[in-house]
């Protein structure tokens, strides 16, 4: 399922130039025309943008935990720590502790409610949750945060269904942090 560098199709070769591109790219390389549009899109959605790094990782870890995606939770636990989240905060996002214990900023509290409603539920979103979010976040932020939830969900199901392997270094770091 995952293509090695020696098997990398022509359009995928640049992604292997710096070494192992990771399992998402190595899987998408099977369909090169998808890879070449997906990677810039994923990069724009999940990489540096107008939404700060900490907030993005809150969205990604929380969404991935709600979707039960081991690959994304483990991979992004490490990224979230690098983005400055505390172990306690990450534990909350992973569903291992209650939010009240550490997310005190109202802006982040409403965001967590929004993520839980969008990623954890089905059908229409409660108007009061949306209204609370919009009191703390401007329109383009609401749109981008919601897009990040959607993209994360897509990757969650992709990684889970294809049983993408978590990098050994990530597993080692999680063990060292006590977050395995």
């Amino acid at each position, binding site marked *: 399922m995952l*293509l090695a560098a*020696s*098997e*990398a*199709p*022509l*359009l995928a070769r640049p992604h292997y130039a710096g070494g192992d591109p990771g399992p998402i790219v190595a899987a998408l*390389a*099977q*369909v*090169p*025309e*998808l890879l070449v549009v997906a990677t810039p899109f994923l990069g724009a959605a999940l990489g540096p943008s107008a939404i700060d790094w900490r907030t993005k990782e809150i969205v990604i870890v929380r969404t991935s935990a709600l979707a039960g995606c081991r690959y994304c939770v483990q991979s992004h636990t490490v990224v979230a720590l690098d983005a400055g989240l505390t172990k306690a905060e990450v534990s909350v996002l992973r569903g291992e502790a209650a939010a009240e214990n550490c997310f005190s900023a109202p802006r982040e509290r409403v965001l967590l409610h929004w993520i839980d409603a969008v990623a954890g539920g089905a059908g229409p979103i409660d108007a009061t949750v949306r209204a609370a979010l919009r009191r703390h976040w401007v329109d383009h932020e609401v749109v981008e945060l919601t897009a990040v939830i959607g993209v994360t969900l897509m990757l969650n199901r992709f990684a889970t269904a294809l049983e993408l392997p978590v990098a050994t270094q990530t597993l080692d770091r999680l063990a060292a942090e006590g977050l395995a």
Partner: protein
Amino acid sequence: MTASTIRPAVADGRLPGRVWMYSNYHCNLACTYCLTESGPKAQRRELDPEAMIDIARQALELGFTDLGVTGGEIFLLSRMPEVLAELARSLPVVALTNGTLFSRRLLDEVQQLAELPVALQISLDRPDPDTNDAMRGPDNFAKVVAAIPRLVERGVTVRIATTVESIEDAELDRLCELHRGLGVPDADHVIRPIIARGRAVDHDLGVQADVPDLPAELTITADGAFWSPFGPTVHGGRLDTDLLITRTTRPLSVPAQALLGLVEQRPAGADSTLNIR
């Protein structure tokens, strides 16, 4: 939009004009240098005849100038004579065959190709049965030299492809005498190297070939579109993906545009260096 980019690229030589199709991967032979590990039990990976005809029409619309059909052994597909005839209504076709299946019935069926721009390219590697058949299997030589004059006398255009690691001048002279005697002129004899892909790797045969060595001929298979007919090879039962362009094959504009993009990224002068057309 795409026709407007592909047509001039073909016209000014940036993109080769031929589109290849792998009609199937199975074969009645199992040659030691086979790129596709073809054989009687190989996975068939067939292209649907209607898809082939549609690809030919799209190739014409986009501005390509020629078609190639290869396999596997293409005449294991019973509809192949009519498919080739239909393809030739769009563009001239060269069709590669091992030349061993030309029964009276098949000869009658391919007679329709005599009136059309179709050439059958038949493999003949050596001027002697024992050396020829060592790599291609028993009776291959006898069947091929029997089939060629029968095709020629029916007016079908025949080309001969010789695939060898090396050949002495004297042996090549005898091979050329042989094909002339069978009714195939020098202009229709091509000699090409063995490429170290597929089964050739296991027999330690052939020369290495990557993008710079291979003409950028768009090649369509059941598994996707590839850079050159030497791209969609099989090794260890697995399709090689290193020369895969796109999985999408239709609309043909998708792989054609991707191929053109790759060609235009090549450094100047980095054109094919192996004589493997």
